[in-house]
């Protein structure tokens, strides 16, 4: 529909420079430049390297997105940008670009939350988000269980990791197995040929007195590393495929078990899974299986929309426009620890609007 808001979104919270363009809930362009190769030899994202790469990539990526979408910058109804959370210096490059672009084009600016964007992106794949939606966000940076009744105004944290993110555990185990960085895709590949029940690795925080929706992957990480080291010390060959499959099973078992339990406890019949780890084939399969058994509808966007990208930011920006949320002002700053409960960063002059909260309900 031509009267739906046309929004460009900019994402630079970590190592991907993303620029996406959407019209309402329709994806028009999703341009991403990644600096992941430059980080590989360090085994993780180096903030200064990421920030330098964002500055280099920004203008070409904006141009690529506009070409891909076949729209003119003049026709945009708004510019959205990840204001946080994320790496401070990296976020600041995107925020600076978005502010300058919005100002020069005379368009409204929306500083939005990275985590809410991860949830909202599913609108581009499966249409408007059911309200409420339970969301499991899992990546190298996040492992959170969030409940949202309105993605522009109400996102509640149900649980989160108390130590490492799930994706970090994948990276670490891949490193111990000498499989390279990032670890997610390569572990997934080896695991397909391994036995997930070969080794009984621990399931963190699943005891009866443990917090029901929080996660812990640090103990698992250590247990797997010790198991591998013990094999090596004994001069035995490490069964890489079985280790990968058993480790992966321990992670996705806990993630899906807690997500489904949260849905049941809260009476929510939709679960969305986002973040880079949502590309994991076993996570998708097990989530599907358990959701079906529990009568929950599972929504998982295609892998490219699960990892960090600009389209997710544009998707949330478009929703802000559609629901007439207040714009950000020119003083908008990057907030590396923006709380998940703030889906966007309205300007100081505006009073938070609630009147149109139930527009779609």
């Amino acid at each position: 529909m031509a009267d739906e808001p046309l929004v460009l979104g900019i994402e630079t919270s970590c190592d991907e420079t993303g620029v996406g363009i959407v019209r309402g809930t329709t994806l028009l362009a999703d341009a991403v430049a990644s600096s992941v190769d430059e980080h590989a030899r360090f085994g993780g994202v180096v903030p200064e390297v990421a920030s330098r790469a964002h500055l280099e990539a920004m203008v070409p990526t904006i141009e690529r997105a506009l070409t891909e979408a076949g729209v003119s910058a003049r026709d945009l109804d708004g510019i959205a940008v990840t204001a946080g959370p994320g790496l401070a210096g990296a976020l600041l490059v995107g925020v600076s670009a978005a502010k300058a672009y919005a100002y020069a084009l005379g368009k409204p600016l929306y500083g939005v939350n990275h985590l809410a964007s991860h949830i909202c992106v599913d609108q581009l794949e499966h249409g408007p988000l059911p309200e409420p939606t339970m969301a499991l966000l899992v990546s190298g940076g996040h492992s959170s269980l969030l409940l949202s009744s309105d993605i522009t105004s109400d996102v509640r944290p149900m649980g989160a990791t108390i130590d490492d993110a799930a994706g970090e555990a994948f990276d670490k185990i891949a490193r111990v197995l000498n499989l390279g960085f990032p670890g997610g895709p390569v572990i997934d590949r080896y695991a397909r040929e391994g036995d997930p029940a070969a080794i009984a690795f621990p399931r963190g925080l699943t005891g009866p007195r443990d917090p029901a929706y929080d996660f812990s992957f640090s103990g698992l990480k250590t247990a797997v590393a010790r198991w591998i080291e013990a094999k090596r010390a004994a001069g035995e060959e490490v069964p890489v495929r079985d280790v990968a499959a058993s480790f992966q099973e321990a992670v996705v078992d806990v993630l899906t078990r807690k997500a489904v339990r949260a849905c049941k406890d809260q009476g929510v019949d939709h679960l969305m899974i986002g973040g880079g780890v949502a590309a994991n084939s076993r996570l998708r399969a097990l989530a599907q299986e358990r959701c079906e058994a529990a009568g929950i509808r599972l929504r998982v966007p295609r892998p490219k929309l699960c990892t960090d990208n600009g389209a997710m930011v544009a998707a949330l920006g478009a929703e802000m426009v559609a629901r007439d949320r207040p714009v950000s002002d020119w003083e908008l700053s990057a907030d590396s620890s923006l709380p998940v409960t703030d889906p966007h960063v309205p300007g100081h002059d505006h009073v938070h609007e609630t009147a149109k909260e139930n527009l779609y309900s």
Partner: protein
Amino acid sequence: MLLLALDTATPAVTVALHDGTDVIASSSQVDARRHGELLLPAVDRVLDRAGRRLDAVTGIVVGVGPGPYTGLRVGLMTAETFGLALGVPVHGVCTLDGLAYAADLDGPFVVATDARRKEVYWARYADSRTRLTDPAVDRPADLAGQVAGLPAVGAGALLYPDTFPRAHAPEHVSAAALAALAAERLAAGEELLAPRPLYLRRPDAQVPRNYKVVTPR
């Protein structure tokens, strides 16, 4: 000609509008930690004071440093994006050259800014328009021999009087000086720099612990 100049390579967030002959409006605020917040409102203010709109600008001038990276990138990203949106050229100028120009000295001198970590960004000049050395980053004590007896300007010089006993103002760069210098060079048909940051140091290759863990506990 209407040039919008900005620089965020020193603790100053500085913006100026130059019509090819004179600076017609400018703003400078010193706050090393808030470049990102302050720059756009400053641009808006300067345009407002001059009674002009951004789309009247025919070129952007930006200080390319050297300077602390996080702040430096705010200016460069803003300048580059303005260039993209407006379809106008973006000219880079070495931030130290802007300081040298504002110093308005005829004889040899040194420009030094604060590079943090007990180092300075610096270069030697024959006069206010002529740089003799490439910008470099060093510990002040290691420069003593190369800058002995010379007057010096910039916060880096003022910070280390043992190395720079003849240090004086200006302390930070002003976009007004940067714009005037760029207008002069453009009028003379000189090529300015690409809008790329002068980093001078390799990135710290440190992966912070829990580098991506950003959700509230």
